[in-house]
């Protein structure tokens, strides 16, 4: 540490001189010049925090001005929070006595690396691999690829055709066109995620399941028959699965 270069009395502000004097009184002769700045900052921050707290307490007690009791209370509450000290000696002696009564545990021979149980170690992997399985069996879940439709207007959720899962399979079997070229209005429908939660591979299935609007499916009454592009529940038969895969491939190409 470099020896303190005492600023000439003319240039150092009074507070800095006070800090330097405190250090001198406590017998600290060598310190970096930044120490005084840090002490000043600490003092300022501490005092303003206490005074603000005191103001709050005094206004809570409906007093007209802040008095010494408020400040005392503020100091006490702050020190309980921020500045803690190690436990007192007799407390330590007490817990030491309890701890030292149990005999030392015997050491099991030939037990490999002697480490605590796994949950107290840091040896568990802190990552999990994402399963990117496109060629998936029917029971496997699927990664959902959220695609938000642009300029969507939320529709009334009471579209009758979208009630049940079975309806979805019906919808799937219809021709599903390309995901491009949406004409006319688009509707985004929110399908409750209870369907998705059952067999999902990843727990982060978005609740908004995006639907593709096939213009040809929009009937005269504006009832939408939509397909579920990204389904996390796949109870459909093989044909559907294949079709879905096909769709997904298209998706990825077009993305």
């Amino acid at each position: 540490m470099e020896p303190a270069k005492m600023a000439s009395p003319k240039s150092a502000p009074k507070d800095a001189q006070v800090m330097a004097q405190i250090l001198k009184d406590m017998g600290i002769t060598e310190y970096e010049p930044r120490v005084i700045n840090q002490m000043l900052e600490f003092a300022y921050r501490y005092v303003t925090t206490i005074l603000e707290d005191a103001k709050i307490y005094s206004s809570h007690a409906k007093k007209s001005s802040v008095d010494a009791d408020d400040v005392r209370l503020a100091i006490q509450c702050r020190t309980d929070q921020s500045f803690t000290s190690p436990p007192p000696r007799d407390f330590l002696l007490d817990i030491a006595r309890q701890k030292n009564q149990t005999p030392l545990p015997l050491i099991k021979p030939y037990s490999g690396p002697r480490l605590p149980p796994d949950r107290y170690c840091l040896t568990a992997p802190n990552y999990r691999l994402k399963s990117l399985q496109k060629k998936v069996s029917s029971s496997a879940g699927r990664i959902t690829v959220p695609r938000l439709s642009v300029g969507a207007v939320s529709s009334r959720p009471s579209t009758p055709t979208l009630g049940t899962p079975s309806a979805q399979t019906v919808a799937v079997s219809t021709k599903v066109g390309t995901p491009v070229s949406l004409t006319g209005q688009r509707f985004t429908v929110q399908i409750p995620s209870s369907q998705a939660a059952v067999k999902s591979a990843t727990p982060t299935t978005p609740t908004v399941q995006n639907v593709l609007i096939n213009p040809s499916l929009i009937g005269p009454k504006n009832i939408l028959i939509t397909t579920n592009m990204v389904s996390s529940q796949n109870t459909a038969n093989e044909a559907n699965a294949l079709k879905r895969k096909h769709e997904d491939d298209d998706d990825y190409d077009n993305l």
Partner: protein
Amino acid sequence: AAVASSSPGVAAVAAVPPGKGLVSGRASHGVALPGCGVVSCCVFASSFGLSYKLLLYALAVGGAVVVEDQPDVSAVLSAYNQQGDPTLYEEYYSGLKHFIECSLDCHRAELSQLFYPLFVHMYLELVYNQHESEAKSFFERFHGDQECYYQDDLRVLSSLTKKEHMKGNETMLDFRTSKFVLRISRDSYQLLKRHLQEKQNNQIWNIVQEHLYIDIFDGMPRSKQQIDAMVGSLAGEAKREANKAKVFFGLLKEPEFDVPLDDEDEEGENEEGKPKKKKPKKDSVGSKNKKQDPNAPPQNRIPLPELKDSDKLDKVMNMKEAARRVRLGPECLPSICFYTFLNAYQGLTAVDITDDSSMIVGGFADSTVRVWSVTPKKLRSVKTAADLSLIDKESDDVLERIMDEKTASELKILYGHSGPVYGTSFSPDRNYLLSCSEDGTVRLWSLQTFTCLVGYKGHNYPVWDTQFSPYGYYFVSGGHDRVARLWATDHYQPLRIFAGHLADVTCTRFHPNSNYIATGSADRTVRLWDVLNGNCVRIFTGHKGPIHALAFSPNGRFLATGATDGRVLLWDIGHGLMVGELKGHTDTIYALRFSRDGEILASGSMDNTVRLWDAVKAFEDLETDDFTTATGHINLPENSQDLLLGTYMTKSTPVVHLHFTRRNLLLAAGAYSSQ
């Protein structure tokens, strides 16, 4: 009236209050710095129960929380009842001063020991009873009379001017509640007692009875020099009964090996037990001492891990190296090889070297731990699981094949701590590394994979030092919370808690037989603890500053300690006496190490020097016997100059670590600092 009261003083606040709604606690400012301890903090606090954190602390330790009636802190401090008129305190004190100065020379030194504790207690009494101006003038008048080694404490005391200041200062509270111990010969004591009881105003006598413990011994009164050597700690000296317990300082028996004689040109390593054409030489240590050493602990006193094959190989290597060891002595001094850490910018805070001197580790203030290989062999980590599945497990050199050559390097950096790393320790089998840090944890790192395995959380405050046991498996740590803890690598909570110090535990070391632990503290005492039951078996006072270096002699009988006062003190563990004082260093001693056979003691210090001392001469012809043990001190010869064998200066590099290789080459380490 009996002087020595049996109880160690009124206990301070007890355990968690049952059902008390408000849980507020005590607090203190300040950052805990190594070497300063708690003493230099200004404090404010409340006087109500224990904080919530304390409850968590108790639960974290794993013990049940004892719930009992909780006396208030003010009950403790009210031990400061008004002892008479505050304005007369100065008169009482100067009256005593006059009496002592007029007493006989032989008694004066001993009775002068009274000045400091009386001064402090009287001052604190005035402050507590809120006689601020009297306290101030009392302080002004008499603080200059105190011994120079108390000046630091007096400076802190001068900042305590109000009653509120006293309530939160842990160290001051401990000072109040534990009686200050003075050791005075019977004659001097009779003199004092007669004088104090004669006078009309017995105030001083009351204070003496209340706050001091006078340990009377039969013998010659001590000289000033003798007293100065032994005083200095926060609680006075050690009572003689504190040092009476039997300590098994002998070494454990080493298992017998057949060490085949071999020359330089013999090929390969011989495993133990393989007979050769030449008659194998048995390990001499094991075979000669068939009888149990009475001072050695029984083999199974504490459970120790069994020797694995790799450990046995290591021991064989050790013995071979020992055969080639240089015999050191005053005529044959060791060569010193210094490892300088460059570009550390005052960030090097801990160093350790393996027993076979193959690796060196540095703990840094930027919270990294860096391991270097000292030999040409690089540091290799084990291959990943994918690669491991490809190797041939049946091949002879499978242990080589599992190591990854591609990432071999001389330096490995270990990240994980969130604060400066203040202590590091290699395990004896070189598989593990421990590091302890300001963040309150001790981390176990694997040196096979160079990753962190476990974080041991127990101290919630900075941990200043840690060390593996000489047999592995156990390790000790000591920190700011004033306790040292014994851990085993396979338990996430400590096995033993060594509580008793009045200030931070700054240095922790195992005895060579792993049954005892020495701790040095900022309260200027060194304590020896028994691993089996956690009892404190020895208290050594004499240093005038926080202790930063401890070293056991290889035969286990002696302990060397170094502190910020620049003195190295030597202690006989069996008798519990100070047997030597080595003066010479001018600054804090951070490293102490005995040579492999105990002939030379090396000390490294902040004054950029390494000094070598003649240990054989220091320990011969000691007057330690039952009589001196009963008195508690021996005459220390002034032989520092005779014992000093050499002083070696570095170029402005404080010496942080010392290590004797198996062949008695001295390695030293430090960080270059450009001032």
